[in-house]
């Protein structure tokens, strides 16, 4: 049995603001019967532009109903600008936390709110549309949505993404794609946080290796990939950098040229002027 907080049970058994607002200024509908949960949110603004009345209808489990109920409490009395800042994290925190596998319920709340605001801003003319490209076809989750949830909740694994968005929870075919999205976002984050060493500084061995890796990843590999090849860093011994060429590059007649004029030249340019590159042969 799920461990729900008292707050979740309270909002499930005594949901606030159930129903539909008459002549709403904004309407948001997300989810579907097939997905196992769905939420319809309607709101009306007062003359100062604040949310005067908001109501919900939800098909779903206890945590879906509780998340919807809390969402209405959170945005009541707020302006559109204020309300649009509400995140799924806030909804979950207000409930004293949700089981990890149920986090997607809080995400559904935030999505419904966004859809309702968008509907209001376009004068009720525009129906909420999915942004980005569909990654998970089973549950209709887009790359944009996955990226956003990863960033807002600091997610690091595919399993977490599934718990938050359902993506990957059906046939599982999109799991590699989700991993790619995680990798690309985490890669960006690492770049933001880690001060990369610069050429010209006195480098420690670790700094040097990481600078070599980065140079290979960013400057050398893309060029080789364009020709169907690849490169792998094998070892660094002082000034000597040992690499292996893969794919089309391995066994290419102009490999020697590639090593000197591309790999070594780039490493000298970005890391250190006296680097010597050696190739590790396939069978070594």
């Amino acid at each position, binding site marked *: 049995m799920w461990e729900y907080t008292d707050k979740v049970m309270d909002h499930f058994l005594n949901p606030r603001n159930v129903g539909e607002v008459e002549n709403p200024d904004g309407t948001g509908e997300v989810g579907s*019967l097939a997905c*196992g*949960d769905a939420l319809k949110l309607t709101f009306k603004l007062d003359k100062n532009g604040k949310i005067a009345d908001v109501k919900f209808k939800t*098909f779903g489990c206890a945590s*879906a*109903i509780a998340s919807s109920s809390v969402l209405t409490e959170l945005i009541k009395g707020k302006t559109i600008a204020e309300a649009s800042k509400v995140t799924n994290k806030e909804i979950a925190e207000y409930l004293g936390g949700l089981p990890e*596998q149920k986090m997607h319920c809080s995400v559904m709340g935030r999505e419904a709110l966004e859809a309702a605001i968008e509907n209001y801003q376009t004068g009720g003319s525009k129906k909420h549309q999915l942004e980005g490209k569909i990654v998970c076809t*089973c549950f209709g989750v887009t790359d944009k949505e996955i990226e956003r949830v990863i960033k807002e909740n600091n997610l690091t694994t595919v399993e977490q993404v599934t718990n938050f968005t359902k993506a990957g*929870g*059906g046939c599982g075919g999109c799991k590699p794609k989700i991993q790619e999205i995680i990798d690309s976002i985490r890669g960006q984050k690492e770049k933001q946080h880690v001060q990369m060493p610069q050429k010209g500084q006195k480098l420690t061995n670790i700094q040097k290796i990481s600078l070599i890796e980065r140079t290979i990843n960013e400057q050398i590999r893309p060029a080789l990939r364009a020709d169907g090849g690849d490169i792998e860093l094998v070892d660094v011994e002082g000034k000597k950098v040992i690499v292996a060429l893969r794919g089309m590059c391995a066994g290419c007649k102009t490999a020697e040229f590639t090593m000197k004029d591309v790999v070594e030249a780039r490493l000298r340019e970005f890391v250190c002027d006296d680097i010597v590159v050696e190739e590790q042969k396939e069978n070594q």
Partner: protein
Amino acid sequence: MKTIYFDNNATSRVAPEVLEVMLPLFSELYGNPSSMHSFGGQIAQMIKKARQQVADLLGCDSSEIIFTSGGTESDNAAIKGVIEANPQKRKIVTTRVEHPAVLSTCRELETLGFTIVELGVDRQGNLDLDELKERVDANTAVVSIMYANNETGVIFPMEKIAEIVSGSGAVLHTDAVQAVGKIPLNLSKSKIDLLSLSGHKLHGPKGIGVLYIKKGTRISPFIVGGHQESGKRAGTENTAAIVGIGKACELAAKFLDDENTRVKKLRDKLEEEILKTCPDSKLNGDKKNRLPNTTNISFEFVEGEAILLMLDKFGICASSGSACTSGSLEPSHVMRAMGVPFTAAHGSIRFSLSRYNTEEEVDFLIEKLPPIINRLRQLSPFVNKK
């Protein structure tokens, strides 16, 4: 608050008579049945009696009964044991609606290179026997088909299935965990080779099960390290539980009539009233061809977990095939195999009764459930759209 238990396909209450015979084995009767003294020897006698009690319920010889740790072990041992004993055969035939104990075992073997055929079912949850006939061939090591489905109670025609399989040379295993004790079985006239049963589904203790192995069936030992259980399943016997499951089987035989008359009537009343009073409710599975204690009802446009948690407030226990209750994101594989629409599968609830249920309990449910369904329907964005 009183517990009203309608979840007997999940597990059942240990019968007081069962507990009574088990208790001495936890205190003064602690001997090892393999010992060469009468203190241990008396336990061996008790185990012998329990083996006979199980055999009597199944209508087989006591030498064909192997005690295991439960239904899941029996299922694993049956399938893997046959595969190991018949290394030249590379195919397993099963169904899409099996319990995970069978389905996961088969899928694990699939990753090892075996071919797995999963037979589908129709909207009522019934198998197509012609398809079975087509798919079983000389390369098939084992056919594993459940006797009765745990979610819907639908019973498969096991004797017809046994006729088809016996001609092919494949071993037939059936997971009868839900069937034993609820419907009459007689293995003496049957062509079933292997059958799994579980203690805690028939008012016995947890942690004990049985694998029936028909004489002459080729199957490898599944736990080695001792002579116990004919060398098939080594390890000092779980003596108290074995004595307990023996008693539970004796009682099951005694109450079989009650199960198929009084319990069935209670189930039918519950089902009829609920279907009558709750809007957009539908029965899942073949109405005629099923266990006397089980009903599976879908409440469209509402979600199963929410129903269960509201029933829980009244002490009423049941279970659901909805995605949310399992922690997975898709509804029950049985509902999906039957082609139950998602709208109904997410709101499916199983009530499974036992001889300990009373008419008052059924009446209590009939009174409490419709308001819960109506309340959740008022919350649902789909109800007024129709």
